């Protein structure tokens, strides 16, 4: 066994817990997870069956944690994890899994297949079998502070533009603010309207907020590549800033995996509970709505639909919030066929968008979303994840569709009841 494989097997052993063992032993081989996976559905290739993607992890479970497996490996009969196996599985574990969690949702015995893929990635990266795109992103995240290489300078430049355009002051490093606002690199580089929307909505709501100069980035490449060591360091930066500024709530932006990383994995990674609340921006906006602090006027006239970001909706449980918010500003809202917790992924989550080799595959996977869109024919497509947004725009461009994609937060800001009109 080479050193790399030894490290992978060791990482698998570390990751396998009681639920993993229960999942593997209760799999009934029904194959329903295949039908739930858009990579299988759109390619028709059975190798993309979700449970099959877990073969290396399953082998380690069987040979190390079951009686028959232990006996079989004593006499050398247990199937082994080899470097070739891991190399072959790289595409299955990374390129063809957006960690969307639909397979976990449909599994009749309740196996969290997606959760196990996340564990399996720990072993893959330990053996060095992770895609270059994700390795690069992780190293930039640690060294520069953002997977896309966005520096504090770029953030400051954006703040400068914003302040000049709107006359508002963007709070940075304000101790004692109620909310700490994070952003994804995509929002800093491609969608500056998000920060402007936050500034306007929070001002109207009378909520105090701040950006932290040492923790503005919400994304977590460590989660995507599957390295807890790296994920922990990135989460810790946010926790340290939140504790230093004594904020009550940290807000994850319109980004899918950032929410998973902060809210669900975060406390487990650092090994203690957060002294603050971790919320998604849609949850906070929905609270504002309920308290009457978010008031809108006018409606979008276009026929609108909402693409559910998997990590926020299915994995995160933020299902009704976006719909209540959309109802405030949309007259003609249509749901796609499978929506909410049974939505179909855009095709590029879980790090897939950062993997160059997966370019063609992710566009094939997008065809599922295209079929859904063709069925309801919206004039505008709304979502709440910058990564979904990029993929949706690219997929539509590639397939000759022309539907503008908009973010939910920025749309709410456009319809914000201004103080003048509120008074009048």
């Amino acid at each position, binding site marked *: 066994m080479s050193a790399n494989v030894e*490290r992978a097997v*060791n*990482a698998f*052993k*570390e990751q*396998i*817990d009681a639920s993993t*063992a229960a999942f593997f032993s209760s799999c009934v081989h029904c194959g329903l997870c295949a039908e739930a996976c858009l990579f299988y559905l759109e390619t028709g290739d059975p190798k993309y069956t979700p449970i099959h993607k877990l073969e290396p992890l399953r082998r380690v479970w069987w040979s*190390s*944690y079951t*009686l028959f497996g232990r006996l079989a490996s004593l006499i050398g009969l247990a199937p082994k994890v080899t470097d070739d196996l891991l190399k072959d599985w790289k595409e299955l574990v990374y390129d063809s899994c957006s960690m969307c969690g639909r397979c976990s949702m449909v599994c009749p015995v309740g196996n969290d297949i997606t959760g196990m893929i996340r564990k399996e990635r720990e072993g893959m*990266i*330990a053996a*060095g079998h*992770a895609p270059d795109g994700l*390795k690069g992103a*992780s*190293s930039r995240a*640690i*060294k520069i502070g953002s997977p896309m290489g966005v520096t504090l300078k770029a953030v400051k430049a954006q703040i400068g533009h914003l302040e000049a355009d709107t006359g508002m002051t963007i709070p940075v490093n304000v101790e004692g603010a109620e909310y700490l606002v994070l952003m994804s690199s995509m929002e800093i580089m491609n969608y500056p309207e998000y920060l402007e929307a936050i500034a306007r909505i929070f001002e109207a709501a009378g909520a105090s907020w701040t950006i932290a100069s040492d923790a503005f980035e919400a994304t977590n490449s460590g989660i995507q590549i599957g*390295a807890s*060591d*790296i994920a922990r360091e990135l989460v810790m930066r946010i926790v340290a800033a939140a504790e230093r500024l004594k904020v009550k709530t940290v807000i994850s932006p319109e980004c899918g995996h950032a929410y998973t990383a902060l809210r669900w994995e975060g406390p487990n990674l650092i090994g203690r509970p957060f002294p603050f609340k971790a919320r998604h921006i849609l949850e906070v906006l929905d609270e504002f709505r309920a308290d009457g602090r978010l008031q809108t006027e006018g409606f979008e006239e276009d026929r609108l639909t909402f693409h559910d970001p998997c990590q926020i909706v299915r994995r995160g449980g933020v299902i009704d919030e976006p719909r209540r918010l959309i109802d405030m500003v949309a007259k003609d809202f249509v749901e796609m066929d499978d929506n909410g917790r049974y939505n179909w992924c855009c095709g590029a989550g879980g790090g897939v968008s950062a993997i160059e080799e997966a370019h063609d595959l992710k566009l094939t996977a997008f065809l599922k979303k295209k079929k859904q869109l063709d069925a309801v024919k919206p004039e505008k497509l709304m979502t709440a994840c910058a990564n979904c947004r990029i993929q949706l725009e690219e997929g539509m461009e590639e397939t000759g569709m022309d539907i503008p994609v908009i973010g939910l937060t920025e749309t709410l800001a456009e319809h914000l009841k201004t103080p003048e009109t509120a008074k009048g």
Partner: protein
Amino acid sequence: MQIDETTPNAARSAASGDDRTLGALLAARGVSRRAFLKYSSYLASLLALPASMAPAMAASLAKAQRQSVIWLSFQECTGCTESLTRSLSPTLDDLIFDFISLDYHHTLQAASGHAAEEARMQAMEAHKGKYIVAVDGSVPVKDGGIYSTIAGMSNLDILEETTKDAFAVVAIGSCAAFGGLPLADPNPTGAVPVTELVTDKPVINIPGCPPIPEAMAAVLAHVLTFGILPELDSLGRPKSFYGESVHDRCYRRPFYDRGEFAESFDDEGAKKGWCLYKLGCKGPATSNACATVKWNGGTSFPIEAGHPCLGCSEPGFWDMGGFYRALSVPTGDVARIAAVAAGAGVVAGAAAGALHRATKSAARGKHHTVTVEELEEK
């Protein structure tokens, strides 16, 4: 058990006075083709036939002439006839009587006395070799069979005379099939089931006290459609109805599996709908379709009403040692054995758990931190 290929339709067409086909009869009565097809699907599914057979069955039934049936009642209580005629009213019994030309039946025929016996003789003559004899009730053979006579003839003689030229015999109810109540200890009349007396003709047993009416309708439909008897088990019962035990298909089975039993008819367990095994339920030893087909048009079955299964469709059910006595009680000290087994299980589980924890913590000890430098190298 195969009946001559040429028998069925030709045989039936012969002469039941009314030579219209079943399809024409039903149409005249306002039964739509759709309703008839639906009924055929129901029968096909009861017989565990593939769904594709339903249209074939409907077509075949529609073309068939009505089957001549002579119904003999011996030592019985008329419960079987009641069950049949009061089934899924109006569809099922109506349709059954559309399938058949019931040429002789004590309870249902209008004729009486000599005219009634004349009808039986006429039917036997007209449909020689082609009629079906349905029997309910057991036959007394002690003392020359004097304990039950009809029109001066003993049951034994009537049975012999009538089945001689029959095409098949259907023993309806537990008395005809297995002797039933009359045969119960001490059996004063020397009652025997039909199978013991009719040995040269195929006999289908449809036991039960009374039997499920759908079973009889489906068996008749099968004979009319295919001209052969349905597949039977070792006791001559159609497998499609008697292939599984009441227990295996019982909705209270999960409680049995969890060891949750009602101990009396008014305890908490009974109120919670737990398993009635300890109250004497014979479900585990009874092959019948009560739990799936149910009674009164699918309304419920005895266990659903809170009463244990009596095992009425099994041979000798009267003499199985009391309706409310549990089937069998475990020998030996179950509690102690279970405690020891559970203890052993805990020890083995703890040992396996400790081993796994050791494996996992060893793996943790060998954890090699993933660093950025390393990512850039590989």
